[in-house]
């Protein structure tokens, strides 16, 4: 649907020839911008409707006093559907641990929620196809479950800031929403999110388009291909400080893949970008002592590096 339009606009209206640098770059830009914004609008809207059934208060009740393993698995899955914004990470964390959600289970949720999010999925699906998107969900869940179990095993409850355990948490009753309320919520959520991410998407796709049109084939194969054992850790190290903007990063990464970057490296980079970020670390410092914060980042980053190596080996 979008391909003929992009071809028509770029090659017929603008009169650029297919195969030329500018023609290919512009064609990629027009096609991907249309496709991605269409997918984003439709899917975010439906995900928002589903999410209106899973407010964090309900998730907390489900996870409270759950055992290891079972709890970690449920937490990772609930992380997909529970809305999460890094600005409410602190009340969320306190609410979880205060109501008896084990620390390791809380971390499984904290890893999965930002990493396995709908924007990352849509972008991966739109730019890499549904197989890669499914692999991303699957391995994202595994990383979240594993990291949570590891942190739970380390018994680091003492490294949560002391005030967290003394906090008085009230009980807010969950008001069930009506259908019109869910639709209004979904509409507001979709528009709000689109408004926030659209510049990143456009810039990301523009840079991706430039790379497609101008960077020589196999340019990256030597440095970021599967034969370079350092590519994965370097990609993760670069991904952590970047703020979780999957929307802007994925089109660039997709273009890099076309120039020879290995797919495991790509997945590892994506996960590092979304799961771990500097702003998140600063926010979590309010509830975690440094040692637990560093352990958390260390474990998740190592798990992501392993995922990268695994997929470079098998894909």
């Amino acid at each position, binding site marked *: 649907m979008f391909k003929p339009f992009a071809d028509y606009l770029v090659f017929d209206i603008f009169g650029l020839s297919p195969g030329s640098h500018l023609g290919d770059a512009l064609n990629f830009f027009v096609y991907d911008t249309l496709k991605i914004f269409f997918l984003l609008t439709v899917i975010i809207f439906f995900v928002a409707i589903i999410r209106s059934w899973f407010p964090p208060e309900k998730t907390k009740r489900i996870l409270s006093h759950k055992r290891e393993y079972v709890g970690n698995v449920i937490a990772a899955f609930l992380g997909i559907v529970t*809305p999460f914004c890094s600005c409410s990470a602190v009340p969320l964390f306190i*609410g979880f641990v205060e109501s008896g959600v084990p620390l390791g289970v809380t971390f499984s949720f904290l890893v999965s929620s930002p990493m396995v999010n709908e924007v990352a999925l849509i972008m991966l699906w739109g730019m890499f196809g549904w197989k890669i998107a499914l692999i991303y969900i699957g391995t994202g869940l595994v990383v979240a479950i594993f990291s949570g179990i590891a942190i739970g095993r380390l018994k680091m409850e003492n490294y949560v800031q002391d005030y967290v355990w003394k906090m008085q948490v*009230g009980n*807010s009753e969950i008001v069930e929403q009506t259908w019109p309320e869910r639709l*209004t919520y979904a509409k507001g959520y979709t528009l709000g999110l689109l408004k926030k991410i659209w510049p990143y998407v456009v810039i990301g796709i523009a840079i991706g388009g430039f790379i497609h049109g101008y960077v020589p084939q196999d340019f990256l194969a030597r440095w970021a291909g599967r034969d370079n054992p350092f590519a994965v850790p370097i990609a993760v190290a670069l991904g952590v400080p970047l703020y979780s903007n999957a929307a802007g990063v994925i089109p660039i990464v997709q273009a890099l893949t076309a120039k020879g970057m290995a797919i495991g490296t790509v997945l590892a980079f994506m996960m590092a970008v979304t799961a771990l970020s500097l702003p998140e670390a600063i926010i979590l410092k309010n509830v975690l002592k440094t040692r637990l914060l560093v352990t958390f980042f260390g474990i998740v980053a190592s798990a992501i590096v392993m995922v990268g190596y695994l997929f470079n080996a098998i894909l």
Partner: protein
Amino acid sequence: MKIEILGTGCAKCKTLYENARKAVEESGKAAEIVKVEDIPSIMKYGVMSTPALVVDGQVKFSGKLASVAEIINML
């Protein structure tokens, strides 16, 4: 009537405060609007996603940015 806006100071919390102010103005009701930014007070209401809106000690909603019209309905 006392309206409290719970939130740790994110952009959405500020917009919600503005919307609540407009809602009070448009409805013509007498209400005091307070921003609540400290974590212990937010947690007392059991709110886990911000921003949230509290009217006379009762949590009306959390984790979303309500429009002026929606807030007027809650007053």
